[in-house]
């Protein structure tokens, strides 16, 4: 049974390691400051107790006043999973550090989020539109995307 670790329990571990990087941590979700996302991700991947070596899924959600990117991490050895969220507040040029250096599985998923939601991922080797053609204006999955 894949146990979903509670956000509060992991947050306490992270607080000791990276003070002040947890914005909000409750039973269901763990929101992390976007600047320290990369160190937290590598910490989650490498510490023996957690070692999340498998990135299941990355999703971006547009909550109108901020973008939220949800990283669903899984550990194949311990069979537990965790939801880590990062938010970016500016709407015209949202950026987040890319996790491709840790999990290469994020390559196409981040390109898809850039293509459909417009969130740029710093450090991504090949950040281009993946589904739409180059001249496409706007980012379709945003809530304020005007089609006509």
């Amino acid at each position, binding site marked *: *049974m*894949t146990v979903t670790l509670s956000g509060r329990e992991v947050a306490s571990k992270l607080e000791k390691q990276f003070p002040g990087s947890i914005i909000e941590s409750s039973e*269901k979700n763990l929101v992390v400051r976007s600047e320290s996302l990369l160190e937290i991700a590598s910490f989650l991947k490498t510490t023996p107790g957690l070692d999340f*070596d*498998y*990135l*299941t*899924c990355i*999703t971006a*959600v*547009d909550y109108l006043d901020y973008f939220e990117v*949800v990283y*669903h991490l899984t550990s*194949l050895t311990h*069979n537990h999973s965790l*939801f880590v969220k990062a938010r970016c507040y500016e709407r015209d040029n949202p950026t987040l550090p890319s996790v491709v250096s840790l*999990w*290469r*599985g*994020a*390559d*196409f*998923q981040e390109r*898809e989020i850039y293509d*459909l939601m417009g969130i740029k991922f710093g450090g991504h080797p090949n950040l281009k*539109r*993946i*589904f*739409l*053609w180059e001249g496409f204006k706007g980012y*379709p*999955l945003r809530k304020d*995307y005007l089609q006509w």
Partner: protein
Amino acid sequence: MVIKTEPFVINVGPQHPSTHGVFRMRMTLDGEVVVDMEPVFGYLHRGIEKLAEERTYTQNIPFTDRLDYLSSMANNLAYVMAVEKLAGISVPERAEYLRVIMAELQRIASHLIAVGAFLNDCGAFMTPILYMIREREKILDLFEMVCGQRLTYNYMRVGGLSHDISEEFLSALGKFVKEMPGFIDEYDQLLAENEILLARSKGVGILPKELAINISASGPVLRGSRVKWDIRKADPYSVYDHFDFEIPTGSIGDCYDRYRVRIEEMRQSVRIIKQAMEQLPGGEVRSQVLQRFHSPVGEAYGHIEAPKGELGFYLVSDGSIAPYRFHIRAPSLINLTALRDMIIGWKLADAIIIFGSIDICMGEVDR
């Protein structure tokens, strides 16, 4: 004396017999050897995630049929389970067992096409795929008996199934489950020791274990590289914990291992269907759910072991009748991440086989 040769770029493009749909590879070739490759997606991007935000939870079910159009039942199951987890809806026991039967039948049908297309790329032109389509037609007849459609079933509903199975479905299923292992053995004997297939696929396109985990591959691609990870065992959903079945894994992660994993999985699916038929309880197949129900605010991630890999639905609800965000974790797209690493250095003919052994479905890749 080495003659200077210049690499040239070839589009193995959208309209190509062996790209399983409209997938395009920009290959830089030096003679026959692939020097570089860039995948280009998007030729079937229909924007399902945008359209799904304007439709109620029940109206989105037909969209999931058209995602991975080779395993529509599995897509239905994944989406409907994600909505049930989001809205906290219980499903009657009989519906759970019928869902498992349909999902496993769909796994056999999808693997038949996967193995047939892989052999088609290997050069056994049209013979094995015609035999395997003949078997798949039997499964399509079973599905047609249940829900009237051959490819896009729209059979499962939030809270159960659309309607119960008829009587002759069980007898037809019993006949199918008796015959099918014989056909799978027939294909296996015909192909397992065939030295052409062994020469073409053994040791070709090796996906090492660490790279497979690092690119978060899933399904037969991950299990082909000796990683024992199957959602049906790791995170048993619906009633999978009532059945015993093994998880086949390959040895070194080459094309032959992925082929063997798919053949073994078909045998395990037949075993599961047999057990599910014996333990099939009575009762109705659908719990009382409004057609346009308001799901509580929140988010949920439901995932199943689809034939192509881990298919997940991430749903965010703002309390209205339509999902606020409808994201699909497409196993085919993520399995393609390592395609470039597996192809570089091989010849063009092997590159086509490596791509065929990953078994993608463009409807799911481009959504």
